[in-house]
């Protein structure tokens, strides 16, 4: 049984929080800060995703499931920037009268820049693994990826774009590690060029994670929106587990 290890995910001391309505903050009332409490829920989700990863990456026939994994990953990554742009656009619409939306827009504007073109890099890596570029481009996202990403569009449009923080925190919460990527490369026999995009994230995502954590901890949250982001995080966890399940069932 694997459980979350907070490790370097220890909480920074949260800044003083105010609610959207301007009512006294939870910290001022003696309750735990909403952003910090939310982050701990995300840590639990990240831990369960790590448990799911143990099952997948110790699959007895890893070479046979790795190629489909790359295709699912490509679908997710190619959806990411358009998804963040949608959340950014909605946050911008709300920002003038909504501090949470304003923080969301500021964060996403920077993060969209950071994540741009990663789909192209990953596509190059898939081609390096032997896949046909046109075939990858023509492939439609699976139902599991559509459920994962589609839920975010629903919350962005019909609840609040800050919901996307739950999605990002779970996906970026356990960045790839070079040691693990080396093992996968050895077990699958794929060339080093297949792993360029993943290795880039192994190097970069610690910074992204720290930035994301401090942003979430400092969000000007109401109870409602803290619960929304937690729901988004748990749905993302469920969606990623489903993707692993589907891959292992093939």
């Amino acid at each position, binding site marked *: *049984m*694997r*459980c*979350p*290890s*907070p490790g370097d995910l*220890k*909480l920074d001391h949260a800044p003083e929080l105010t609610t959207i309505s301007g009512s006294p903050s939870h910290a001022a009332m003696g*309750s*735990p800060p909403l952003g*910090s*409490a939310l*982050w*701990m*829920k995300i840590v*639990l*989700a990240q*831990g*369960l*995703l*790590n*448990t*799911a*990863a*143990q*099952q*997948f*990456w*110790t699959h007895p026939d890893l070479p046979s499931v790795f190629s489909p*994994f790359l295709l699912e*990953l490509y679908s*997710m*990554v190619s959806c*990411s920037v358009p998804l963040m742009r949608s959340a950014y656009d909605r946050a911008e619409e709300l920002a003038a009268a909504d501090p949470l939306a304003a923080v969301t827009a500021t964060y996403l504007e920077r993060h969209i820049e950071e*994540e741009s073109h*990663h789909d192209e890099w990953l596509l190059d890596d898939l081609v390096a693994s032997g896949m046909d570029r046109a075939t990858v481009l023509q492939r439609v996202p699976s139902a599991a990826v559509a459920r994962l990403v589609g839920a975010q569009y629903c919350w962005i449009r019909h609840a609040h774009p800050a919901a996307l923080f739950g999605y*990002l925190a779970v*996906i*970026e919460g*356990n*960045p*790839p*590690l070079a*040691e*693990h*990527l080396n093992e*996968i490369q050895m077990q699958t026999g794929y060339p080093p060029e297949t792993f360029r*995009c*993943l290795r880039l*994230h192994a190097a970069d*995502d610690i910074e992204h994670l720290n930035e994301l954590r401090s942003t979430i901890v400092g969000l000007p949250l109401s109870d409602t929106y803290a*619960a929304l982001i*937690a729901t988004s995080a*748990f749905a993302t*966890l*469920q969606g*990623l*587990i489903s993707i*692993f399940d589907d891959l292992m069932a093939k």
Partner: protein
Amino acid sequence: MSDTQSKLQRLEDAGVLEQRQFTAEELTLVATITDDEIDVLVRLRQKLGATADGKNHIRPNFVV
């Protein structure tokens, strides 16, 4: 057993967390979790079944 202890114990019994890996401050924050949220995590943990102890460096490798 307090409500806080009850929630943490339920999470621990289900294999969602090990309390010894968290500081007292962090456990206080974890205990703000609602019963509905605990239900979701416990169901997902049960779905994963008896996952064997793995290696700490294994990661999901999903990226944005």
